[in-house]
């Protein structure tokens, strides 16, 4: 009898709350087995690092990178986070994971063994799988090279500080950070081509034109009712074409075209731009990334429990933590702070599993591609690989979940003195709720659309930026003119920002560095 209970005890991976590298490693192996064999996850090799709370604060303040160049703003964030942490206003994350190969995850030393197990499943498998397989990460980030690149960036900026002084480097970094959100390519990759190839292509093009030249084309009447574009217009069009305008990536544009920057300053812009681009996929996949990790840890720990490999106490602790992570207060709750990405992601993925295995008629109508296909693992893996938040929600948010979360759309029009409930969770509202929430997660819609549209390098060199104003939503006054000043610093000449309505094409507002200087 005694022997039997003992044997059962041995089956547990660990008991009690203290962790050791031994139990961690044993638990990791058990988790890995489920993750790889059962869920079919595909991950980068894992590197798990144990860190103290101070080191976690460090990692927080340098935007989660283990290596980061020095800048005062990181010091400021550290001070802020530390203050919040010391006051007890905010706890620290249990883990932090970096999209790199090998995939580095930081685990806090304060975590109990149960939390370490949870965190291993969450970060080392959930996030890791997502990083490795999602198309955005595959296309836009280079997990194998990022740490080396950060090493280079840190060293380069330190060297610049040595050579040119702290103040000069800080000035460039401040300006670059202000433009970080507008230092990414949203739709195309960095144009990169070896110069000799470019030349060859240009020659080829010219040859083709010569070969197919036909003087007859000249005699065709002009399309605009005979009105030839004026010489000035042609000039402007040519100029824009040469500079590849309009350009949405402000940092890229300044790096390549600013008349005043020295080469080390351009390199710093390049570094900041690279980092912004590296993080851009993460900004676009908050719901999916967290949802994926949460779903994975939830499945794995339940599986471990079913296999009798973790104790009930451990399970309770894990469930308590899990439920606080996916807690979604209602809109009128004091704790409401918007839709919780963990909750939305996790619920949607649970819902996909349900639709795959146990669909209702409604599901068959709304999600015909996956309803009842039985292979929820494959379906989820496919979703994780090929979507970002916006498309994922548009594709998979089911009426069932809309009802469960009791989602509704509130319309706010500046002209009215009231809000309107546009749609709720009913037959007529599903479409609109789904569309709206998907739009709210579309970074292209959320972030202001600002582009370089024109400049005259031979004239006054004034840089013209255009903000496309959508739905009458202007830029926040706070910081706008500050950022313009930063751009002016990088560009060296005056900068004009025009807000243009996206529908009417009217100029909504206009501001420039000359005016703000005069005002100040």
């Amino acid at each position, binding site marked *: 009898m005694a022997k039997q209970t003992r044997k059962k005890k041995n089956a547990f991976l660990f008991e009690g709350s203290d962790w050791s*590298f031994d139990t*961690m490693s044993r638990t990791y192996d058990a988790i890995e087995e489920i993750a790889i064999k059962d869920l079919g996850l595909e991950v980068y*090799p894992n*590197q*798990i*690092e*144990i*860190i*103290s709370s*101070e*080191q976690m604060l*460090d990692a927080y303040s*340098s935007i989660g990178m283990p290596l980061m160049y*020095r*800048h*005062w*703003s*990181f*010091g*400021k964030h550290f001070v*802020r986070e530390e*203050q919040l942490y010391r006051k007890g206003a905010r706890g620290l994350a249990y883990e932090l994971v970096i999209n790199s190969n*090998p995939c580095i995850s930081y685990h806090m030393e304060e975590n109990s063994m149960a939390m370490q197990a949870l965190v291993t499943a969450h970060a080392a498998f959930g996030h890791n799988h997502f990083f490795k397989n999602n198309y955005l990460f595959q296309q836009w980030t280079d997990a194998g090279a990022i740490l080396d690149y950060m090493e280079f960036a840190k060293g380069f900026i330190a060297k610049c500080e040595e050579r040119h002084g702290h103040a000069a480097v*800080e000035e460039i970094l*401040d300006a670059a950070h202000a433009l970080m*959100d*507008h230092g990414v390519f949203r739709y195309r990759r960095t144009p990169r081509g070896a110069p000799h190839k470019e030349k060859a292509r240009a020659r080829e093009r010219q040859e083709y034109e010569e070969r197919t030249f036909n003087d007859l084309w000249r005699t065709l009447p002009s399309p605009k009712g005979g009105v030839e574009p004026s010489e000035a217009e042609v000039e402007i069009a040519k100029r824009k074409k040469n500079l590849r305008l309009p350009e949405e990536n402000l940092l890229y544009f300044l790096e390549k075209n600013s008349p005043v920057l020295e080469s080390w300053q351009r390199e710093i812009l390049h570094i900041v731009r690279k980092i912004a681009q590296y993080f851009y996929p993460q900004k676009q996949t908050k719901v999916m990334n967290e949802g994926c990790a949460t779903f994975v840890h939830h499945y794995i720990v339940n599986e471990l429990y079913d296999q009798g490999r973790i104790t009930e106490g451990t399970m309770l602790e894990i469930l308590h933590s899990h439920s606080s992570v996916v807690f*979604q*207060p*209602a*809109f*009128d*709750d004091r704790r*409401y702070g*918007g*839709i919780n990405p963990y909750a939305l992601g996790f619920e949607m993925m649970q819902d996909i599993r349900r639709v795959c295995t146990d669909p209702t008629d409604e599901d068959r109508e709304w999600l015909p591609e996956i309803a009842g296909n039985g292979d929820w693992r494959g379906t989820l893996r496919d979703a994780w690989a090929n979507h970002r938040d916006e498309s994922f929600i548009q594709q998979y948010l089911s009426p069932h979940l809309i009802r469960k979360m009791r*989602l509704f*759309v*509130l319309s706010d*029009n*500046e002209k009215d003195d*009231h*809000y309107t*409930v546009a749609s*709720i*969770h009913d037959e007529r*509202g599903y479409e609109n709720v789904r569309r*709206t*929430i998907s*739009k*709210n997660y579309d970074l292209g819609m959320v972030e202001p659309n600002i582009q370089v549209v024109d400049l005259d390098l031979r004239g006054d060199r004034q840089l013209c930026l255009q*903000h496309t104003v959508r*739905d*009458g*939503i*202007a830029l*926040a006054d706070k*910081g706008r003119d*500050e*950022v313009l000043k930063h751009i002016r610093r990088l560009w060296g000449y005056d900068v004009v920002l025009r807000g243009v309505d996206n529908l009417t094409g009217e100029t909504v507002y206009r501001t420039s560095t000359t005016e703000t200087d005069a005002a100040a």
Partner: protein
Amino acid sequence: MPNFIDRRLNPKDKSLSNRQRFLRRARAQLKNVINQSVKDRGIADVDGRQVVSVPTRGIGEPRFQSSSKGGKRDQVFTGNKEFSAGDRLSKPKQGAGSGGGKDAADGGEGTDDFEFTLSREEFLELFFEDLELPDLVKTNLKEVIAFKPRRAGYTVSGAPTNINVLRTMHNSFSRRIALHRPKQRDLDAIVAQIEELERGSDQDDTATQRMAELQEELTRLLRKRKVVPFIDPIDIRFNRFERQALPNTKAVMFCLMDVSGSMGEREKELAKRFFILLHLFLKRRYDKIDIVFIRHTHEAQEVDEDTFFYSRETGGTVVSTALEEMLRVVYERYPTQEWNIYAAQASDGDNFSGDSEKCVRMLDEIVMPLCQYYAYVEILDDREADIFKSSDNGTALWRAYQEAGKSWDNFQAKRISRPSDIYPVFRELFAKQNKSADTSGKARA
């Protein structure tokens, strides 16, 4: 099996240099905040961890962001209870209300002040940034030097306590090898052979001859051992020490105060703040600081701090007694070649008639040559302050001290009437000598 790495033992303060960059960035504002806090708050709690709050201006990180107000926007919320499509909700009068939701809060950095804690070092660094000990010729002349022995190689002579055993044995060993000093082992072998032969039964010729040879060899070896000793005086090395000059790091601060009836609680409180500030400053400069409290009425005595500030005393006022007492203490305990002497005197300006002249004479002849610095603060009544602030006339003591101030650069006299006066006065007393940098800064601002 993953790669586990324990990072907990990595060096701490990875972000320290970021913090320093941040402090440098916020320097101007931090200084304003600190100056204000020193003025408002009791100076007694200046010397500790300081929570400062800095306005976000200047340390903001601007971004282009969509406004959280205006325009037309749709937002999704959770947990609908009673709404149906088409319902209208009136907007709250101010702010974004529930419509704005999180976005309003997320919209910016937050305009509140940014609050955080400075370490004691960081605080004092900022606090004393442009305060510097008066750069006086006399300070340099009187810069007292102490000497400290420092190891510097080896020497062949010295005290037995300084023998360097390792080096000595090293020399001895090489000499013994070079001169072929017979080893104990060889001697023992020969002695053993002799004993063997003696015990041996066959006493033939060869044995006797062998015996003689061995005896001879033994005496030769023994003689050689005597000639080549184990340790010779020429082997011995001593540790050599050099006297290294060290700037003196000790200071004594004399607090002199009039405690006669005319000095009320308010006056004493002001004086105390002045002393504390001076002490704080000296603490930055010297490793060891002694404080001597001397109070006086018509007679002076050295007392402890509590008595100094809090016990009441009645009597007349004779300031020169305090100077005499101070001199006594200096001669007795604080030789000037070891101690930097600072004196701070607080008084309401009353003095026994004729004594002020005596004070000035004493200062001129004896006290000032001893002191690095002598500061006198006169504590005025609020009502008097306006009358006296600008003019040169005042109490007898004040007028007399004005004379002393003219002849000694390291003598300063100031008048204060409110707690907030102390800090500016203190700054004036210890302000950097190179005012030029300051004024150019002001001109730019």
